[in-house]
C-alpha cells in the first residue's frame, strides 16, 4: 500500500531553484534512498517532506491525505543526532511522546520498552555526552521511531560514524526494520550505503536537483549479510556511478 507520495515539488531559496519537480513515492514497509552529492538539495527535500519548509509548488501526501507544510505528521531525524544535552537519554527518546501530550512518566515507560531492541539497555539515565557516537545515533533513531511508528525520514544518519560502527549499524537497522515493521526514507551521499540498505534508490542530480534515475535493489533485505562483497553489489555500484558521471549532470 502506498504510504507517501510527492507531486512535483519545487523549492527555491533567494530566487535560486534548489530542487525541481520531485515526484517520489514510498510503499508501506519500504526503505527508499535519495542519493545525491553534497548540495544537490537532499536536506531541502526532506525539510519539505517533514513539513518544516513549505515548497514553492507541489504537494506531499501521506496515506492519500495532503500534509504539505504541516509538521508533526512524519518523524524526521535531522542531519545531526540532536540529542538535547540537558535531558537524560530516556527523556530525549520519550520527547516526541511528551510533545504529543503524554505524561512524562507514561512516555518514559513507553520508551523504555524499546531500549533492548535498540541496543540501548542500561543507558536510560545517562546524559547524551556520556555516550559514544554509535549509541547516540541509535538513541536518536529510537526517538525518531517513537515520533511516528509508520514512516521516518533520516538525513545521513550514519555518515558521522567510523566505517566499522557504520556497517554494524547498517545490518542492525535492516534487522530492526524487518522486526518492528516501519518504512524509511533515507538520505545519503554514500553509494555503498544506499545499495546496502535500500529497496529502491532515487538518484538526485543536477542543479537544480532533479530525480534522474530510479533503481530497484531486488535482493530481500533479510538476505543482505555480506551483500557488499558480492558481484551483484559491484554491478549496482557501477550502474550508479555511470549515472552520476554522465556528462551534463
Amino acid at each position, binding site marked *: 500500500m502506498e504510504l507517501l507520495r510527492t507531486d512535483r515539488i519545487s523549492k527555491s531559496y533567494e530566487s535560486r531553484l534548489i530542487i525541481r519537480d520531485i515526484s517520489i513515492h514510498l510503499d508501506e514497509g519500504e526503505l527508499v534512498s535519495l542519493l545525491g552529492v553534497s548540495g544537490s538539495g537532499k536536506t531541502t527535500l526532506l525539510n519539505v517532506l517533514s513539513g*518544516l519548509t513549505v515548497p514553492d509548488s507541489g504537494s506531499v501526501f501521506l496515506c492519500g491525505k495532503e500534509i504539505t507544510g504541516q509538521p508533526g505528521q512524519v518523524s*524526521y531525524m535531522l542531519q545531526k543526532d540532536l540529542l538535547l544535552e*540537558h535531558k537524560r537519554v530516556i527523556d530525549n527518546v520519550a520527547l516526541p511522546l511528551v510533545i504529543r501530550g503524554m505524561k512524562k512518566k507514561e512516555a518514559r515507560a513507553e520508551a523504555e520498552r524499546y531500549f533492548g531492541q535498540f541496543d540501548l539497555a542500561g543507558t536510560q539515565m545517562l*546524559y547524551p555526552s*556520556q555516550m559514544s557516537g554509535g549509541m547516540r545515533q541509535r538513541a536518536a533513531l529510537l526517538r525518531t521511531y517513537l515520533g511516528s511508528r509508520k514512516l521516518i525520514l533520516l538525513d545521513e544518519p550514519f555518515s558521522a560514524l567510523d566505517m566499522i560502527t557504520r556497517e554494524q549499524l547498517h545490518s542492525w537497522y535492516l534487522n530492526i526494520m524487518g522486526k518492528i515493521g516501519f518504512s524509511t526514507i533515507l538520505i545519503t551521499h554514500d553509494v555503498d550505503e544506499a545499495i546496502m540498505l535500500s529497496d529502491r534508490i532515487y538518484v538526485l542530480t543536477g542543479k537544480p536537483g532533479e530525480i534522474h534515475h530510479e533503481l530497484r535493489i531486488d535482493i530481500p533485505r533479510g538476505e543482505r549479510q555480506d551483500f557488499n562483497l558480492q558481484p551483484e553489489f559491484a554491478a549496482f555500484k557501477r550502474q550508479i556511478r555511470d549515472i552520476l558521471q554522465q556528462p551534463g549532470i
Partner: protein
Amino acid sequence: MKRRSESIRAKLLPAGAFCLIVLLWWGISAIGIVPGYMLPSPADVMTAFIHDFPNLMTHALVSVTEALYGLVIGTVLAFALACAMDRFLVLEEAVLPILVVTQTIPTIAIAPLLVLWMGFGMEPKITLVVITAFFPIAVGLLDGFKGADPDAVALLRSMGATRRQIFYHVKIPAAMPYFFSGLRISASYAVVSAVISEWLGGFEGLGVYMTRVRKAYAFDKMFAVILLIVIVSLLLMKIVNLLRAVSLPWLKFRHETAGKRQ
C-alpha cells in the same frame, strides 16, 4: 593528573599573592609610614572583627536579607522581561536600548532619590539591589534564548511542538548557563548595593554601621566591615555556583568528556 595539579596551582597562586599583600600591609603599618589610626594593622582589624562579631552579624543579617530579596525580585522581573522580549521582537527592539542606557547611570546617584521616595526602611535598599541585579540576569537570559540551537528548534517543530513546548524544552535549558553567569555577577554586586543605600539612611545594616564607626574614626572597625562584606559577597557567589551545579547536572559530564578528549 595534570588537570588536578593545574587546579591546585590555580588556587595556590592567588592565595600566595593574597598573603604577600597582607604581609606588605602589616609591614607598612608596623614601620609606621602611615599613622596607625588611619591604617590599622591586619591584627587590629582581626581583633576588631572578633570583638565586634555579634554586632557585625546582626547588621549583616539585615544587609543580606535585603540583598536576597533584591536578587529574588530582580531574577523574577528579569525572567519575565526576557521571556517577553524573546516572544515579541518589537519589545526587545524598543526596550533593550533603554535598558543599556540605564546601565550608565551610577547606582550611587539613584540611591538618594530612592531614599527620598521610599523612606528609611528596607524598600529603597531592596529596590536598589533589584535595579543592579536585574540587568545582568535579563541580558544573560536573552543571550541564552538566542543561543538556542536552531536545529534543535527545527527538530521540535518537526515533532509538531507548539511555541511554548519549544520554549520549555529547548530555549530555557539553553539559557540556564547564561542565567547563572548573570546571577553570579548580580550576586557579587548585591550586598554592596544594599550597603551603599544603607549609607544614605536607615536604622540597621552594615552600611548604617559603617557610617556610625566612620563618625567615630574607628578605622579598625571600618576595615572589619569591609572584610565582612567581601566574605559575604564571596559566600553568595559560592552559593550561586552550588545552585548552578545542582540545577544543571548535565554540565558536569560535558566537562568530564571535554577533559578526556584533551
